[in-house]
């Protein structure tokens, strides 16, 4: 009986510890200047088909991105939920058959990332990890299905202990969603995605 009680109490106590250590800082700023001057792999601009099929996905992705720029985890969670919904409504059958398998993989991964973002409104670091992976999914999606506007892929070399990370933006102006208000200007355009 005593052992059982102890086991239950320790479970509860340690579960609280998990919650307590959220919101730790992203990374140190050492080597900042040397890293800032390092060039990421800059690819030439690419042109994608003009299409409205990803419009709602792009809209909600950009809202999510803006919420992370402002360090607003709650807003990011609700945008993540909306993004999850529109990803689920994407009409795969209207896409060319040879591309459907790859698109399904992209959508599945994107949905999983959006879901994590929607469920972790109080863990912005965790939301950003998934946002970074999600950004690659959305870029790859647009390359196949097309877009209705020009988008810019931006790279911040300092994200994730200088491993770097990318996201998509509606303009060349850098407002960093991966580091947020701590480092709003980190980033440079590595690819311009324009519409034919």
């Amino acid at each position, binding site marked *: 009986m005593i052992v059982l009680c102890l086991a239950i109490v*320790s*479970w509860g106590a*340690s579960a609280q*510890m998990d919650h307590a250590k959220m919101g730790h800082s992203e990374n140190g700023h050492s080597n900042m200047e040397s890293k800032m001057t390092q060039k990421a792999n800059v690819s030439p601009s690419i042109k994608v088909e003009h299409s409205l099929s990803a419009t709602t996905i792009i809209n909600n992705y950009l809202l999510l991105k803006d919420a992370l720029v402002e360090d607003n985890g709650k807003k990011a969670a609700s945008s993540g939920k909306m993004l999850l919904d529109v990803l689920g409504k994407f009409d795969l059958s209207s896409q060319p058959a040879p591309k459907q398998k790859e698109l399904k*993989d992209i959508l*599945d*991964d994107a949905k999983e990332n959006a879901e*994590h973002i929607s469920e972790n409104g109080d863990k912005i670091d965790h939301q950003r990890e*998934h946002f970074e992976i999600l950004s690659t999914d959305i870029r790859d999606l647009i390359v196949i299905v097309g877009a209705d506007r020009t988008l810019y892929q931006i790279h911040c070399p300092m994200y994730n202990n200088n491993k770097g990370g990318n996201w998509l933006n509606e303009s060349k102006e850098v407002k960093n969603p991966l580091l947020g208000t701590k480092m709003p200007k980190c980033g440079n355009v590595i690819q311009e995605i324009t519409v034919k």
Partner: protein
Amino acid sequence: MKWLKRIGLALLVVLVGLQVIPTRTNQSTEVASSDFIKTNKVPEDVGRMLLTSCYNCHSNNTNYPWYSRVQPVGWLLENHINKGKAVLNLSEFGGYSVRKQKSKLKSMANQIEKDEMPLSSYTFIHHDARLSQDSKKVLVDYLNALQDSL
């Protein structure tokens, strides 16, 4: 004091009663061909770390501790394992799309590096599942290299 004794006795009866309700266990007899360690031919030291620190909640095979037979602790554990497997099941890893494998490898490396995983509520009881700084580095480097090779 009489009512206190009665409540105590009632609680005891309930707790004893709980023990006889059968529980499902997360154990399989064979290692699936889609198993992470098997498909990726993981080196032995990394495989050992994965088995001790990750597989109990993130695979179809849990090495259950003695207290898992005590209810309601066992149910809490089961819930925990189901949640763990929903986000990452290393027994089915080889069946994931390459994109999903890459995403999971990235998340695994991130979670381990930031000490989010293994959960502190887990290592609190399972000291052997704790990863030292050196082990963490070996594991994270391996996961990153594997991600780049896919």
